């Protein structure tokens, strides 16, 4: 391996795959890059790594750069070069809570968010404590959105607690939380350890939620335009490889190494194939688009995604909503992504914003070649989010 070395921070999660695969399968090398992958113990450490210049680019929770642009959740500003993964999280409940839900007649279909939410609220009692990996995470956003839409005031009526993902299974075993929403493999680990059951994939709440992004310090891409473009292309190719049928087993083997996710390949493969085992009895559920790396322009950093996240945060924290949406949209650097992939076989959408939640099925949209299909993009309550005018 040779090439220009870039320091890349990542968290040991299945959705770090595009970065790991870019390095391991030679996509970085093809661009004359060598990715020095730095495993981080926490999201806050990753954020500090990139803001203080120890890393050039990082694997990041999509809401973190948005929160920082609004002046909350850390100092400094980040740009999002591309979306690394769409969806890929799972909501799980304690064995105790699962038992009560089953007694009340709930069937654990791992699909219907309305039924699952009602069953959860009915069985939970007045104090529901849910663990998420970070205060600014799609996990937290999906929970707030889901529970509020079902008439369960969040965050007022529910305690959302931060629990580091590797400690999630332990926290639910000790009774410190009643439920969790976490990225794979940690939901499956809770099932594997016999301490929890899976209730829903995150995709059941929003079927096309940006989950992790590739983030850089604001100004880095302008200072290093060539490097940024090469990195985007390498990661884009890795995403395409990951979404190619037949590559999941190899990907799982690579990710299972101790330098990366360090859990058995068999568990990682469940998330990559969208076939999760939801309880200790071994019941398995197949979810279409449980996690997407490439299909339907998954890597495209839509301005509307940034605006949606910012709007949700602004609503919760009492900030000016329209101003926040405008700022959030600007974090998603669709301009840089377009420029980097213009010479590639990538089929890019004609627009840089879309109506979030408006696609009930796979839909053709205008694009460079005219053959781009977007994947279903729907909220469970069928709400549609449009960017306000002037954003």
């Amino acid at each position: 391996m040779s090439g220009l070395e870039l320091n890349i921070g990542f968290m040991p999660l299945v959705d770090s795959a595009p970065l790991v695969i870019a390095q391991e399968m030679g996509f970085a090398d093809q661009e004359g890059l060598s990715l020095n992958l730095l495993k981080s113990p926490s999201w806050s450490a990753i954020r500090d790594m990139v803001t203080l210049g120890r890393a050039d680019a990082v694997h990041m929770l999509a809401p973190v750069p948005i929160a920082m642009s609004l002046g909350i959740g850390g100092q400094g500003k980040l740009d999002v070069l591309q979306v690394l993964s769409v969806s890929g999280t799972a909501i799980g409940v304690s064995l105790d809570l699962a038992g009560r839900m089953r007694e009340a007649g709930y069937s654990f279909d791992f699909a219907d968010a309305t039924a699952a939410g009602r069953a959860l609220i009915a069985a939970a009692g007045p104090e529901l404590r849910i663990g998420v990996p970070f205060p600014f995470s799609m996990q937290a956003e999906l929970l707030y959105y889901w529970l509020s839409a079902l008439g369960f005031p969040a965050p007022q009526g529910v305690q959302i607690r931060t629990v580091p993902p590797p400690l999630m299974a332990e926290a639910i075993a000790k009774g410190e939380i009643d439920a969790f929403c976490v990225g794979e493999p940690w939901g499956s680990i809770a099932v594997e350890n016999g301490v929890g059951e899976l209730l829903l994939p995150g995709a059941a709440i929003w079927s096309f939620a940006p989950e992790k992004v590739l983030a850089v310090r604001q100004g880095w891409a302008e200072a290093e335009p060539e490097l940024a473009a090469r990195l985007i292309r390498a990661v884009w190719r890795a995403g395409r490889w990951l979404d190619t049928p037949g590559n999941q087993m190899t990907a799982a083997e690579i990710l299972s190494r101790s330098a990366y996710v360090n859990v058995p390949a068999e568990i990682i493969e469940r998330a990559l194939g969208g076939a999760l085992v939801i309880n200790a009895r071994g019941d398995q559920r197949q979810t279409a688009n449980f996690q997407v790396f490439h299909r339907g322009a998954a890597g495209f950093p839509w301005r509307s995604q940034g605006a949606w996240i910012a709007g949700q945060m602004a609503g919760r924290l009492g900030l000016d909503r329209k101003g926040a949406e405008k700022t959030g949209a600007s974090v998603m650097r669709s301009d840089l992504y377009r420029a980097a992939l213009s010479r590639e076989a990538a089929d890019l959408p004609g627009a840089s914003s879309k109506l979030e939640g408006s696609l009930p099925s796979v839909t053709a949209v205008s694009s460079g070649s005219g053959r781009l299909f977007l994947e279903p993009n729907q909220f469970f309550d069928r709400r549609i989010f449009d960017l306000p005018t002037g954003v």
Partner: protein
Amino acid sequence: MSKRLSIVVVEKDRDRARLIVDSLRAAGDYEIHVIAEESALARKVAEKQPDVVLIDVASPSRDTLEELAVASGPLDRPVAMFVDRSDDNLTKQAIEAGLSAYVVDGMRPDRLKPILDAAITRFHMFQRMRKELEQTKRALEERKVLDRAKGILMKARGITEDEAYALLRKTAMDQGRKVVDVAQALVTAAGLLS
């Protein structure tokens, strides 16, 4: 005279916690609490109403403390990661030493500096100890490999221990490799052939 600053140290290891507390005591008159438990960490920290929180950068529990940085979080007073943007250098030093600190917004840098200086020195020492421990471990492992390789040569060629070592060293020099690498290759090969 302003009130005594309150410091929370989040540290599981009792010996390490004691060392940190000792050096903070030596640096000034502070009210110091140690929290060792990871569960419900944010609440436990908030209860103490600290001015400064010190935690190992490598601790995954750091993310739990980020809750405190949200204005609507359990702590009424907003908390920022310790930097004062004016002092990037101090931030870098701390991170390099493996220390992260959270402080109440608006704290005067001159009150913070002695605390951080003391903590940074201590964390540097931890890093050095960790490195030394790793080096010792590695040296022990290399020793073991070397002994096994010598044993294999002595048995196979009927030579003495000194001769076996000389042979390993010569081979390593001829090939421009480390003695331990040659020994490791021999041990691996012998394992395959047996």
